[in-house]
């Protein structure tokens, strides 16, 4: 446990180094139009580090280990009985993404609520950086931290499955993996405004977590879903990217077919990003006009 936290702590420190810290450093990045790109990066970094420091704790690692690892182990036990190639590795990779999804999906929105209760949300709005960027920094902190913790589920699944298959198309695997990560970030970021609006209403979101797991196809290609479920799943970038990831592991489809899945994944990612940006801009504008952010 100590080792895990030490490694996670070091990871947090890594992000300290890559973004300017002072105005003089910022000036090097200043855009010609007068807008400070560096200032925005500074805000992104600040939001990331603030959320990282709040989140990265022994308790969080323990909670994930207790609540998520048994699911990964159970899924891997089923995969163990399979005679097909690459099933165990697909399940293990999927188990790590299940952790990221289940744990982070509402955290960004809840962190907004926390800021509201603490009275610091107004300070975010006073910043010249858009609220979207600040929230993206927080969201990335959640995803990076729980991706690292998700490696526990990955390791547990491999341990139970007792089989590590090779990856048939390594380059396609790397690209698909990147796409899945981006898709998960986009998907969970979409829920930030929703969870902020609904609030921490007990149990409201408990069905959305398994629904996201099913529709994203973290454990299996979504073509296995009942028809109307598959139709819904195809609206999510995660389902296309995960399917490509599974094929790149087991080699059931050639590279051309894998690449065909990337196109809708990228397209949907762009649509999600635009939608999220639009929603945040509207929410921010409404908050500024109504001045209704202060708790109570």
């Amino acid at each position: 446990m100590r080792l895990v936290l030490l490694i996670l702590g070091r990871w947090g420190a890594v992000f300290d180094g890559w973004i300017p810290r002072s105005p003089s450093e910022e000036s090097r990045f200043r855009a010609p139009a007068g807008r400070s790109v560096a200032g925005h990066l500074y805000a992104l970094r600040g939001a990331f580090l603030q959320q990282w420091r709040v989140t990265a704790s022994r308790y969080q690692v323990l909670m994930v280990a207790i609540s998520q690892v048994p699911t990964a182990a159970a899924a891997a036990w089923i995969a163990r009985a399979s005679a097909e190639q690459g099933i165990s590795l697909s399940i293990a990779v999927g188990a790590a993404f299940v952790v990221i999804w289940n744990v982070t999906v509402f955290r960004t929105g809840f962190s907004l609520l926390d800021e509201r209760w603490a009275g610091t949300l107004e300070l975010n709005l006073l910043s010249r950086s858009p609220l979207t960027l600040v929230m993206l920094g927080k969201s990335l902190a959640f995803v990076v931290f729980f991706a690292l913790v998700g490696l526990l589920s990955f390791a547990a699944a491999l341990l139970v499955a007792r089989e590590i298959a090779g990856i048939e198309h390594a380059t396609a695997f790397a690209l698909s993996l990147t796409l899945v990560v981006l898709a998960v970030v986009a998907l969970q970021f979409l829920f930030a405004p929703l969870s902020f609006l609904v609030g921490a209403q007990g149990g409201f979101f408990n069905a959305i977590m398994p629904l996201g797991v099913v529709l994203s196809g973290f454990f299996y290609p979504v073509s296995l879903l009942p028809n109307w479920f598959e139709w819904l799943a195809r609206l999510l970038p995660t389902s296309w990217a995960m399917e490509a990831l599974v094929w790149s592991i087991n080699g059931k489809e050639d590279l051309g077919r894998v690449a065909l899945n990337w196109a809708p994944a990228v397209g949907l990612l762009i649509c999600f990003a635009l939608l999220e940006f639009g929603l945040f801009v509207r929410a921010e504008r409404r908050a500024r006009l109504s001045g209704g952010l202060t708790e109570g």
Partner: protein
Amino acid sequence: MVARVQNFYLQAYLSYRGLFHWLTPFPYFSNVVLAPFLTLLNFILIGRFASVGDVDRFGIGMVVYAIVWIYVGGVTQSFSNDRSGGTLHLLFASPASRASAYFARGAGHFYNGPLTAVSTTLLAVLVIDLNAGDLNYLTYAVAIVAVSLGILTFSLLLGNFAALYHDWFLFSSIGYGGLLGLTGVIIPVDRLPRALEVIANGLPITHGLSALRGAFAGEPLASVASDLLLELAVAGAYALVGLAVFTFIDRAARQRGILAGGEE
């Protein structure tokens, strides 16, 4: 006697209505119907993806796990909310029967177990063709009630710790994770390492699930009676241990003045 029954009913009703925060329409539907079914669907599809043959095995396991979902989450949060809401110390200050107060905290939740098991079974049959052609309804009903009692008394025990440590997420996670991994819901108990197999035999679900599998295979009640009796014995043991822990916490709270409104 009548007054005692009325008092028990009142406590059960008030603690259920006041402390169970999933009791509004969408959260309730989400936790009783949607989430358990989607979890079942997930494991069935993992089985189909892995081409392991009898995936209904996982489906029947997840029908029981639906009960875990609603009881463990519901009861542990009720205990925790009792403390954080500042009402637990009022109970400790009162002369009320501790046994009555303890079991009343679970009684209101009881109907949720059979309800979620039945709704999950129905959805599984309708949506993903869980085979219920040979189902023996009587065995099914008795097995569901027995398993529900076992999980409920286990949840009450966890609830004690949720109140003591002021953290129901941790203890509900222990319940969810432990019961998923160790009771044969997915991984058969006889395939576990020896030490874990011993633990599994002392957990709720393990014996009742065998009876439920028998019900789906069309077995009459008499042929699964031994499993059901073992499940009820486990439930009884958790009820006694849980009550002992509750009484211990009550005494400690009185002597040390803790558990008042969440501050120690």
